[in-house]
């Protein structure tokens, strides 16, 4: 270090600003994904939670199947609901990751770097999509093993993937807001639970909405998760989709349009001036 600080020829990339922002996001996606892969406990959860849910729910709620049309087994009915539920819960890990970053010294580093701050959020959100992809795949494979028989065509599957990715993005960005607002990591876990649990259960995930208690039905029939579930279910096993398809997409896009700027603004506010 004495005479010349570095022997390395430091070459700086001369990308335009928006390309730099993309590079920053890619680096942050790599970081968050590495976190997911190295966090073995969480990874085990990613693999085994879907299997456990599937086995438990089919066993516990078997009686619901009696109320379904004859040609639909409860497992066939349940798949869409349980996939969307897993994805919804999976998305909340974004809030934990964001809260974690904000509570550690690393956030000072990111702030003092000439980087795009939003890249940190992008990294967590996108890596969440990857993890949800793994969970969903495990769940589908387990379902097939247990006798799930979808009749979706290739283009149906593409649509299903599209809707699920959009929904994951929407919920992850929502969860990023909670992560920024949280005062502690434990706090954010509770917040997520209190929001996602009622949303996923007061829906058409585990039983047709018509069979739910009167007072909860209006909510269950009109909330975004039900639309996503009914859209995915219709594409998978051919139940009527009605308005659920476009409503699922509109809801997800709507949440994205609001939550991306809000999360970004809150994150910037929290990280730049105190």
């Amino acid at each position: 270090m004495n005479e010349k600080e570095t022997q390395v020829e430091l070459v700086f990339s001369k990308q335009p600003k928006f390309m730099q922002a993309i590079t920053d996001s890619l680096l942050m996606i790599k970081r968050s994904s590495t976190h997911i892969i190295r966090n073995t406990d969480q990874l085990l959860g990613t693999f085994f939670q879907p299997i456990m849910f599937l086995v438990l729910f089919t066993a516990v709620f078997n009686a619901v199947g009696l109320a379904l049309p004859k040609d639909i087994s409860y497992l066939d009915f349940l798949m869409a609901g349980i996939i969307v539920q897993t994805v919804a819960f999976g998305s909340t890990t974004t809030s934990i990751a964001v809260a974690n970053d904000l509570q550690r010294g690393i956030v000072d580093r990111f702030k003092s770097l000439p980087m795009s701050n939003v890249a940190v959020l992008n990294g967590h959100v996108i890596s969440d999509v990857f993890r949800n992809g793994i969970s969903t795949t495990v769940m589908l494979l387990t379902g097939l093993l247990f006798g799930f028989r979808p009749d979706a065509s290739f283009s149906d599957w593409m649509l299903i993937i599209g809707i699920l990715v959009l929904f994951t993005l929407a919920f992850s960005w929502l969860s990023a807001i909670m992560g920024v607002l949280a005062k502690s990591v434990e706090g954010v876990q509770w917040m997520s639970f209190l929001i996602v649990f009622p949303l996923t259960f007061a829906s058409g995930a585990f039983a047709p909405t018509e069979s739910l208690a009167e007072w909860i039905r209006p909510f269950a029939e009109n909330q975004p998760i039900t639309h996503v579930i009914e859209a995915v279910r219709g594409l998978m096993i051919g139940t009527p989709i009605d308005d659920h398809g476009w409503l699922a997409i509109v809801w997800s896009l709507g949440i994205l349009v609001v939550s991306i700027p809000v999360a970004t603004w809150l994150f910037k506010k929290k990280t730049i001036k105190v």
Partner: protein
Amino acid sequence: MAKSYAITVKNLKKSYGKNQVLNGINLAVERGTMLALLGPNGAGKTTTVRIMSTLLGYDAGTVSIEGHDVATSPDDVRSIIGLTGQSAAVDEILTGRENLIMMGRLYRLTKESAKARANELLEQFDLVDAADRSVKTYSGGMRRRLDLAVSLIATPPVIFLDEPTTGLDPRSRIAMWDIINRLKESGKTILLTTQYLEEADQLADNIVVIDGGKVIAEGTAKELKSKVGKDRLELTFASAATYKNALDSIGKQIFDSNEEEKTITLVISDTNKDVSDVLNRLTKAKVKIESMDIHKPTLDDVFLSLTGKAKKGKK
């Protein structure tokens, strides 16, 4: 003579609600020198550094780093500074090498440059063996070294070190000092905060003492010491009996005495006269001196007389 300053802070003020944390801080760091910001806990050191490194807003004043104003061009400031904070700002789950490469790329280095620079820094900071281990497994000293290495990736000319050795064991502290001295030799402008007087004395060219959000003294270590005043004459005696006799014969001039160590300290203004005077008295009283020592006041003395607070813990 015109001096070129890398860091200038003028009348900096910051409050949290009613709590005025900084009350008009002024300081300037000449390019290529090291300034120590010295003060007790809660004096406003970290707040000042966080403002200078664009992490925190402020209420009034101006802060300029190499001509860039932190308020109006924070991105320019960020690209020429390196910051090492009190808690290591590195990713715990990634390895040391992954941290360096990632941060290097966030500093806009190309992939190849970032990799080569990471290797070099791992070597310079004695982290080669731990390079591919998760940071979780690092000791406190290793984390600080990695953190500092990360700050240096893009060879920034200005470095902020916020209490770089707080919480480190003595060995790691010495290693850190060594690294900081090498940084200084490489021509960087460094602002260091510390609550250790010894550290400021050892490392810095200039010292600014702050307390309660205000600068209460500044200068070189030597200047600060002379501000507090005169030299001390310390006499040590072999036995308790001679110590007692000496106490009696010297009388009222005594500044401090320690019965356990059998030492007597006097403040002297005219070295020749005062010392010979004391020696004459002791010789007349036939008191034998074991050893004597004249020394300048320590920074501890400076701090005590400036802030009116005793520094906790003596070395």
